[in-house]
Structure formats: structure tokens, C-alpha cells
């Protein structure tokens, strides 16, 4: 049985798809067979971030409508054979998803994969609801900013009440907080909520803090999950997240402002 992870937030533009790409690639790098599913029907982005947009033949909606088999629609990643991508349809909308259809596809994926990462669309409507409905774990992606925190809180409420686990009275979905686009300098200036502020509002287990980084934009533009950029702070932070998720004890990094040495101060890093 695969473990189903939903990457969700409520708010758009906080880094759900970047995180889905990084987490799925990270799990694959650790040797786990991983599928990543784009639930953002109509606004597909995951294939771009994963750099496989030119290899899309069939999509998630085709599989749900039984116009294609799962194997026809799954795209194998060229960099890591453990990783497969199920792209979203660009021409349909989220009403094309049905609960039965999604369940059938996830069950079929469960037979061959260890982890299924569901990239949720923004909002709390059908697409987002179905992305989280079958989940075992939830990574709630939040920016250190009040409206994002509020939306995450709303999403946590839905995870606790509107999921299959909640409806069947099973153990609740495991919820993890992932703080993205974090900038210690701006926190120090009082322009951004600190990790402690967000933790106080959401009262959630912190899976990691991803610093605001140029590497993320570069990675998106080149279609490479940022976790593959081992030199970058964001890439390292995502690798820490994977190790923490898999049970290792890894201290948090990138929360404090980095002290610049004399060299850095002279030449502005």
C-alpha cells in the first residue's frame, strides 16, 4: 500500500507545485517508487516544473474517463527512474474529476508505488477537496504572511473534517507545516511573520523552512525540481524536509540570518 501525501495550502502562489516536485523527486532520490499527480486540472503546471511538458500524451482526466490506461498516461522521469508523473489536463476543468474516478486511479497507483504525492490546486473547491480526500499525510505549504496562514488554518480544518479518514473515523491525516519563501532578514525588520509566529497560530508540527531563494525561480524555468540543485539553500532545505519526513532527526536550518564573514561583508557575498 502506498502512502498518499497531499501538498496543499488554500492560498495560491505559495509554492505547492514547487514543493510537490521537490518532495516527489526527493523521495525518488531516496530510493522510493514515487508517483506525483497534478490535481490542478485546467491550469497544469507540474509538468512544466518537472520538465516533462513535451512528453504529455494522455492525462489524469483521460485515465479517469477510461480513455487511456494509467501506464499510457504516466510519464517516467528521465533523471530518476523511481519517479513517475501523472499530468493534469489543460483543456478540461475540475468538474471532470469524480470521487470514484480519483479513488480508482489512486488505488491502481497504490499497487506499484511506495508514495503518491498529490499536488493540490489552490482554493477549497472540488479539485482541492479531491486532492486531499484520500490522503494519509498532508504537507501544508504556508508563506510567512497573515492571509496565507489564515488560509492554511482553514485548510487544516477541512483536512480534519472532510477527508476519507475523518468520514470513516480512522486516525486523522498527519499534518505537517512547511514554511516557504522565508526570509530571516525581513523577519528581523518586522516585515514578515517569524517561524514562532506561524507556529503559534497554526500549532502544527514543523516539517521544514524553505528560504526565499533565486534557485527556485531558476529551477522552475529550467524544468528541474529545485531539490536537484544541491548547492542551493532551497535545494538543501528540501532535502532536509525529505529526511525529516522519513524519520531522521535533522536540525532546522535557514531560520536565522546567516552571519557574513569578513570576506562576505567586503564583497557582498
Amino acid at each position, binding site marked *: 500500500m502506498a502512502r498518499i501525501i497531499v501538498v496543499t495550502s488554500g492560498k495560491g502562489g505559495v509554492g505547492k507545485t514547487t514543493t510537490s516536485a521537490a518532495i516527489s523527486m526527493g523521495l525518488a532520490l531516496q530510493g522510493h517508487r514515487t508517483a506525483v499527480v497534478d490535481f490542478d486540472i485546467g491550469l497544469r503546471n507540474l509538468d512544466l516544473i518537472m520538465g516533462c511538458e513535451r512528453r504529455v500524451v494522455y492525462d489524469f482526466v483521460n485515465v479517469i474517463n477510461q480513455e487511456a490506461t494509467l501506464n499510457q498516461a504516466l510519464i517516467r522521469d528521465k533523471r530518476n527512474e523511481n519517479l513517475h508523473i501523472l499530468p493534469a489536463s489543460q483543456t478540461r476543468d475540475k468538474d471532470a474529476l469524480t470521487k470514484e474516478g480519483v479513488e480508482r486511479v489512486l488505488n491502481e497507483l497504490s499497487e506499484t508505488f511506495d508514495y503518491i504525492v498529490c499536488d493540490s490546486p489552490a482554493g477549497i473547491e472540488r479539485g482541492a477537496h479531491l486532492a486531499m480526500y484520500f490522503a494519509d499525510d498532508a504537507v501544508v505549504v504556508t508563506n510567512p504572511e497573515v492571509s496565507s496562514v489564515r488560509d492554511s*488554518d482553514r485548510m*487544516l480544518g*477541512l483536512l*480534519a473534517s472532510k477527508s476519507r479518514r475523518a468520514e470513516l473515523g480512522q486516525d486523522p491525516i498527519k499534518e505537517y507545516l512547511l514554511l516557504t519563501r522565508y526570509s530571516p532578514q525581513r523577519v528581523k525588520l518586522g516585515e514578515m511573520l517569524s517561524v514562532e509566529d506561524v507556529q503559534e*497560530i497554526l*500549532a502544527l508540527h514543523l516539517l521544514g523552512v524553505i528560504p526565499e531563494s533565486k534557485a527556485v525561480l531558476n529551477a522552475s524555468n529550467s524544468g528541474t525540481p529545485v531539490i536537484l540543485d544541491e548547492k542551493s539553500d532551497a535545494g538543501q532545505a528540501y532535502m532536509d524536509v525529505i529526511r525529516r519526513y522519513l524519520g531522521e532527526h535533522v536540525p532546522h536550518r535557514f531560520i536565522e540570518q546567516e552571519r557574513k564573514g569578513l570576506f562576505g561583508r567586503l564583497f557582498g557575498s
Partner: protein
Amino acid sequence: MIESPAIGTLHTTRLLNSGMPVNSTEPHHPTAALEIKAGSITLPILKLFSADFEALNVQLEQKLRQAPEFFRNAPIIVDLSELVPDREPLDFSAFVDSLRNRGLSPVGVRGGSQIQQQAAQSAKLAVLAEIKPDNAHQAPAAQGASFKPASPAKGFGPTKLIDHPVRSGQRIYAAGGDLIVLAQVSPGAEIMADGNIHIYGSLKGRALAGVQGNLEARVFCSDLQAELIAIGGHYKISENLDEAVRGKPVQVYLRDNLLIIDYL
């Protein structure tokens, strides 16, 4: 088949005109002769399941005999929502007369077809908006022949215990009893109880105690940052909270229709 008319309670909001017979020695408002205020009153509802005039009269007589004192001059709402409109035309004015002859004061109707509502209006009865059954504020209507006195709920129901955070957008209602929350209540969340509310975390959302009109209800919380706090419909919003009590452990109660916030 004729079912017996059931009597439930309705929690409704009416406009009252207070200050009409003012004591002339102590005029409250020397300039204003009247004032219009929103208030809420609990009224008995007479729910009809049949338009058979004879059967209604017989069963009504039986019901009234059970509690004659309670029904003397009692204002009452007639609920027509269970009647089948086309098949059973009810002689409305005759029925209203028979209610009045028995000492009841019908004040309005609820539900029913347009024709029935027109008949009610011509009998000088108010037509009240229908309340949806999922409305959390509505008192549960008594079924069948059972009868409940029209007094506000006093927290006799079971206490509801919540041990997880109440998130934005979530709504929790402890019907008929107290509510205890052992975690935080987030902004945008709403917790309600017919009785008291206790929060052993931060209260950042809305808390409404005594929602069925129990003015004795109180709210206790260990960290007051509420968006709104209400007891029996008397409320205070975040903006009107005294800065001195913000973030403090407090209790909130009503005294002379004023919401009092005290340190614990």
C-alpha cells in the same frame, strides 16, 4: 390518517415597541415617545398535520387540557409546512376563531402555500419566514405528542468536549449544554453553546454562549483575543474589546444586559 398536532418551540426575533406606557414621574426618554428594538421571544408552535377541522378541534382540546394554565392567553404560531396544500384546504378563519375561543392568541403562521398564507393575512396574522431545519440556532421541535415548556435551554444537555484546534471556517455547536475546548480557536472559527463555553487555549475566533437565549451563560477563556464574543445575543466585537483584557484569562457574563469582562 390524522396525526395529532404537535407543539414545539420557536425562537424568533420580533420587533418590540418598548417605552409606550412610561411612568410619567420617571420618563426614560423625555423626548422619544417610543423606540424600536430587536428582541427575541420563545413562542409555542402549533404544527398541523391535517386540515380536518373536526379532528383538529378534538385533539387541540385534549392538548390544552394537559396544561390549561400554560395556554391561557398564550401567543402561538401555527405551522402549516406539513400540510398538503392542494388536497386539504383549511378553513383558516374558522380555525383561528376556534383557537381564540379556547383562549389562545394566534400571532402568526409559518410555512404553507401561498393561498394559505393569504388566508392567514386576511385573518390578521403575521406570515413568518420559514426556518431551515439545519439552522443551528433553532430549537429542536418536539415531535409527535410530546410537549416542551417554552423556557430557554439552561444547559441540561451533555457537555461537548473538543480536544483539537478549532480551525478557521469550522463551526462547533454544543446543543443544549456546555462546550469545553482544550485547544485554540482560530480566527474565522465559530463555537456556540446553549450553555457555557470554556476555552483552555487562545480564543481568536467567535464564541457565542447561550445562543438559545440563556442569559445566565458565561464564556471562560485563558487567552482572550476573540473576534466576537456573545451571550444570549448580546455581543462585543474585537474592536470594542478593552485593550487591558486582551490576551488575558477572563470570564464574560451579562449584567443588566451589559457584557462584562472580568479577569479570572
